[in-house]
């Protein structure tokens, strides 16, 4: 049987054609995230070798791949923490690779980023961590912020830990607080770096359900880097598999599972 997967192709204009992306934006059709021909190397080591991807509003893309294949780097490129060596990144139709810091910061305010190791501010309490983006980017009153923080923490089951310091929490608890912080400003794009790693199965399922809920209710576009195939199957509309800097395959979970490509089969074999 011929494999039914498709290699990564864009349904957006060709590289460099910014006008077309802007037209798409004006027509209300610009995908939330578009990556085109993205290259990134560190000290002569090629990490990403021409990645093309796109994610629309309300959709979730799971990025899989072996450790060290540049999955986290991909997320950091999207949020502007690294600059690509070449290629373009469009966020809601706006090219960010050549934008100035102020423009990038404005775009960043529409994104929520969950770091692999939570990256909570260790001099702030749980409450202050989640409040941090609200204090910086909204005009909410103190009581409005306090209520919003409580709601967000309740959403990840951490409402009773308001006054604890990050150092007093387990890795899984830190991750849940970090997720609440990433959701604080109601982002249109959610970048999640291994959201369920180190979490128990019940919390992992709750996090998956939360991502699905955001996808349905708020049209949030999510890119999830994960090694958790079960989670990828549950939350992702599409899955892309990175290998040696390239996106070797993209499709639904079922399509990838049926693939007869040796590497893809090897990757999915462990969980089958």
């Amino acid at each position, binding site marked *: 049987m011929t494999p039914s997967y498709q290699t990564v192709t864009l349904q957006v204009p060709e590289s460099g054609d910014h006008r077309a992306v802007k037209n798409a934006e004006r027509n209300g059709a610009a995908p939330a995230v578009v990556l085109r021909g993205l290259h990134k190397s560190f000290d002569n080591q090629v990490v990403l070798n021409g990645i093309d991807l796109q994610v629309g509003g309300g959709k979730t893309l799971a990025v899989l791949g072996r450790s060290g294949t540049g999955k986290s780097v991909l997320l950091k490129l999207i949020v502007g923490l690294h600059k690509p060596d070449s290629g373009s990144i469009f966020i809601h139709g706006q090219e960010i690779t050549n934008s100035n810091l102020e423009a990038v*910061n404005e775009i960043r305010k529409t994104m929520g980023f969950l770091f692999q190791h939570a*990256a909570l501010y*260790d001099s702030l309490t749980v409450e202050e961590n989640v409040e941090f*983006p609200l204090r910086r980017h909204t005009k909410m009153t103190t009581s409005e912020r306090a209520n919003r923080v409580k709601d967000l923490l309740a959403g990840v089951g951490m409402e009773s830990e308001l006054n604890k310091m990050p150092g007093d929490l387990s890795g899984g608890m830190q991750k849940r607080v970090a997720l609440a912080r990433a959701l604080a400003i109601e982002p249109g794009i959610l970048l999640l770096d291994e959201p369920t790693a180190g979490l128990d199965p019940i919390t992992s399922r709750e996090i998956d359900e939360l991502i699905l809920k955001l996808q349905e209710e708020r049209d949030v576009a999510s890119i999830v880097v994960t090694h958790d195939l079960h989670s990828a199957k549950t939350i992702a509309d599409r899955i892309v598999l990175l290998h040696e800097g390239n996106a070797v395959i993209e499709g639904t979970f079922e399509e990838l599972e049926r693939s007869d490509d040796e590497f893809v089969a090897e990757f999915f074999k462990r969980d089958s």
Partner: protein
Amino acid sequence: MIHNASDSRLWIGQDAPQARSLTRSIRASLWNPINGFLEWFGELGIFIWRVLRATVRRPFEGRELIRQLDEVGSKSLPMVALAGAAIGAVLALESRHSLIRFGAKAMLPVAIVFSIIHETGPVVTGLVVSGRVGAGIGAELGSMRVTEQIDAMESSGVNPYKLLAFTRILACVLMLPLLTLAADFSGLVAGWIANTLAEPISFHKFLHAGFAGASFSDFLAPTFRTAVFGLIIGVIACFQGMRSQGGTEGVGRSATSSVVLSSLFVMLADVILTKLILVFFP
């Protein structure tokens, strides 16, 4: 043993690659430190430019600045005062012995006051703060860098060069002159106590004798040169912290290099500023 010409050519020919490799390694061992040194200054320049750019834009981070003023100022006060007092007491004991030998005992208050206000007060404050605050900032920002807290801040649209670096640098600049005043005062008090234990003299008389002939510039310029020390400590510590890499070992390196480099630059600046003060306030 006698070698003929062809033997020598053979010997030279075989050794040529070794000689080239030796030349390359000597060149590398000379060039790499120079390259690293220039690279460090280049990165420092970029860092300062980013901080300056961040400075002129809102918000001005008043809350964080107040927190840092407390961190740099109030929390350094006991150590700075203690160091100042120790220097004042030692200075009184040592100077007394020497001045008596030369029959200039009456000059003791002047010697103590001038030594403390002109040199020991500012330098001791600079070195104590570069040790306490420099290590603290280097380790804190280094730890934030390696645990991706600075990345998290940037990814949420907050400029860390303003929130973390500018506030700390400004706090160091504002607090160093005030801490110097504290070091000067405790040094004078300790100097008077050490002196009065040997030969009782009222504090008023001691100060009156000490400040006789002193002008306002004797006090002002040396004290305010510590604002430059503060700038050096703040910039170096923030820079070393924010470029930290390599886990906990990297954090340790950042803390150590913050102290070493800021102390070194404080001493260098002291020499240059002392010369300038002598030129402009003779």
